[in-house]
């Protein structure tokens, strides 16, 4: 009797499983169910799928690494990767340079500044599907506004989205229209954080406006720029919706990017297992990129 009383009372089972504050789970559960159900389960399931030959309709069978082997020499996948890289290589630097320029232009006390800022941000809020529909009218080869303007200027009409050599570039342009607003907000916020006294000190030392920008402001913006490079790259590599809304990968597959290729393999050609394997390779790249961003933050924190 006494020995039992002396020992620390064993924690009830519920407490051992649920922790010291079991009621916390009530609050966590809804979000946890959503995250597990909508993200974790599909991620695990598509990993399984990537080792199978499956059309999502019949049971399918296991094929080991055959899907991953096949994607090593798939010419269509290679050209899709090429398109994604071209898109990323253009979109990321351009969106950052334009974003910075616009942010600097908007970071001054001029009349109607609120209006300008809103106007720049507006396209960023519009859904990609809306952008796609809007621009496919503007850039229509025969009846679009873009060619009408070129006519007025005396420049030859262009094929735009209907020309295999131009379609991807036009998509970059549309993506910039919609995506530059994000760089602008981020840079605007960062510009407000540049210490006033640093700028003033540089002025006192005789720095011209460009000098201040180059030697004081830009270095202060470095961490934000790194973040933007990584973030916009992650977005570019996942490009899908704009392609779906404008060209569906055409003309002549000139705008088939990697994620669109995954969609096509899974839901048009019924090669779901293969599509999952491609998706996993893309995911591996994205994770590596995200790790790079974390690594940079850790390193710069250590130096600071």
């Amino acid at each position, binding site marked *: 009797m006494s020995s039992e009383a002396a020992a620390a009372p064993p924690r009830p089972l519920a407490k051992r499983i649920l922790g010291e504050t079991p009621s916390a789970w009530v609050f966590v559960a*809804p979000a946890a169910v959503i995250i597990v159900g909508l993200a974790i389960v599909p991620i695990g399931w598509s990993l399984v799928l990537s080792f199978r030959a499956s059309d999502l309709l*019949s049971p399918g069978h296991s094929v080991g690494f055959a899907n991953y082997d096949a994607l090593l020499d798939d010419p269509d996948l290679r050209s899709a990767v090429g398109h994604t890289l071209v898109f990323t290589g253009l979109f990321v630097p351009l969106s950052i340079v334009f974003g910075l320029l616009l942010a600097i232009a908007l970071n001054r006390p001029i009349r109607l500044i609120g209006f300008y800022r809103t106007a720049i941000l507006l396209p960023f809020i519009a859904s990609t599907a809306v952008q796609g529909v809007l621009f*496919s009218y503007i850039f229509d080869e025969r009846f679009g506004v873009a060619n009408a303007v070129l006519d007025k200027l005396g420049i030859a009409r262009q094929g735009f989205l209907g020309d*295999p050599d131009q379609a991807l570039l036009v998509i970059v342009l549309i993506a910039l229209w919609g995506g530059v607003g994000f760089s602008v907000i981020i840079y605007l916020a960062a510009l407000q954080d540049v210490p006033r006294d640093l700028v003033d000190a540089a002025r006192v030392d005789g720095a011209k406006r460009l000098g201040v920008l180059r030697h004081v402001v830009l270095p202060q913006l470095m961490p934000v720029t790194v973040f933007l490079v990584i973030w916009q790259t992650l977005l570019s590599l996942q490009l899908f919706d704009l392609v779906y809304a*404008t060209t*569906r990968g*055409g*003309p002549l597959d000139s705008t088939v990017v990697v994620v669109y290729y995954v969609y096509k393999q899974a*839901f048009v*050609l019924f090669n779901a297992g293969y599509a999952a394997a491609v998706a996993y390779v893309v995911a591996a790249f994205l994770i590596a990129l995200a790790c790079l961003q974390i690594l940079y933050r850790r390193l710069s924190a250590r130096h600071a």
Partner: protein
Amino acid sequence: MASRARVLMTVVALAATALIAVSCGGDDDDGGSGGKAKLTFWHGQTEMWADCLATQIAEFNRTHKNIEVSSDTGGVVADRMLQKVTAGLQAGNYPDVAYVFGSDLANFAKSDKLVDLTDSDKIDIDAFYPAGRDAATVDGRVRAVPALIDNLAIVYNRKLFKEAGVDFPNDDWTWDDFRATAKQLTDDARGIVGTGWPGTGDEDTTWRIWPLVWQLGGDILSEDGDTVGFDGASGEGALSYVRDLSADGSVYIDTSAGSERMNQLFQSNKMAMIATGPWNLPDFVDAKVDYGVALLPAFQGEHTTIAGPDVWAIFDNGENRAKAAEEFVGWLTSAEQNLTCATQAGSLPTREDVTKLDGYQDYVNSLPGLTKFVDNLQNAQVRPTIAEYPQISQAMGKAIGLMLFQKAEPADALQDAVDKSNAALRVPGP
């Protein structure tokens, strides 16, 4: 402040829990025996046909006390049905009845969730026209019910023909005539183009070439079905024709998603001729286009065209619901109901007995040019219902795209398409 935040969080958490409870427990009613069977019906239609279907659903629910067909269409349009239903089957949450393109049925038939209707007492498949029957049959089993039978013909803009002083097409015209007419009617200065062809390279690009292939003596599959039947002269001739047509500058290559632009051009009197089916006629009437309908041109004599029958597919959500779905589809595809929405859908009769109904003449007269499409059914062939068809379509779509943009020689593009298709046909089925 803190307590207010906590209250807010509790409310949010409770709301989220409630949401989950509702969404998970909402409609797992599989209509236990004796109860009312509730059916989900993804008809995939928009505008006029959708409105007409809504009245049919209401009528069915009124006359069938033990079945309730939901008027919620799942927000799916026919174009995306394949993806939505595939994803739904994977997730275990799929409709009881869905509108499926004939060319997709063979792949759905691989799923054991697609109800086999061969022995159904509610569906009399023999009542339907052969084109619809073939499209609903996979490997000799009836796996769906014909929903709509259509075919391709040339719809032309009479106003533009008159303005250009060109004679209307007659029923003896050839592909050479078509090409010459398209060229004559193209007027870049006024923004008028002779004709159009979808250029995204998907099935909408591909299916329009099969009539040319058939007319030239080829087929989609060879006799034994092990290889394609469009290698050699028929495929090359068809591709060459597309290339020549495009080289004239009289083709609008529609690269928009879903090939909607072509129809819009035709409706705004900017395109002289469009190869399309009866489903477009209600839109053309709506847009007040003065149009006429001509058979597809021929190479020599035969005006062979393609019928693209679409079907109602029934998916198994438990026996009770499947039986109810059969009853609903049986009712929906009966001769009387077939005629009810035919005008709004711009659809042709799916079965012979429709033509004997009292309202049939009114229906034929309701849309100018409809009789031409009805007559054209005799010239129509269908695509094979095989699971490899999407791969063949993809390969051929690419070849046609190369012709439209004049980026390859017909023989090379064809060889590539034939090789890819044959490779797909060699892969053993599951």
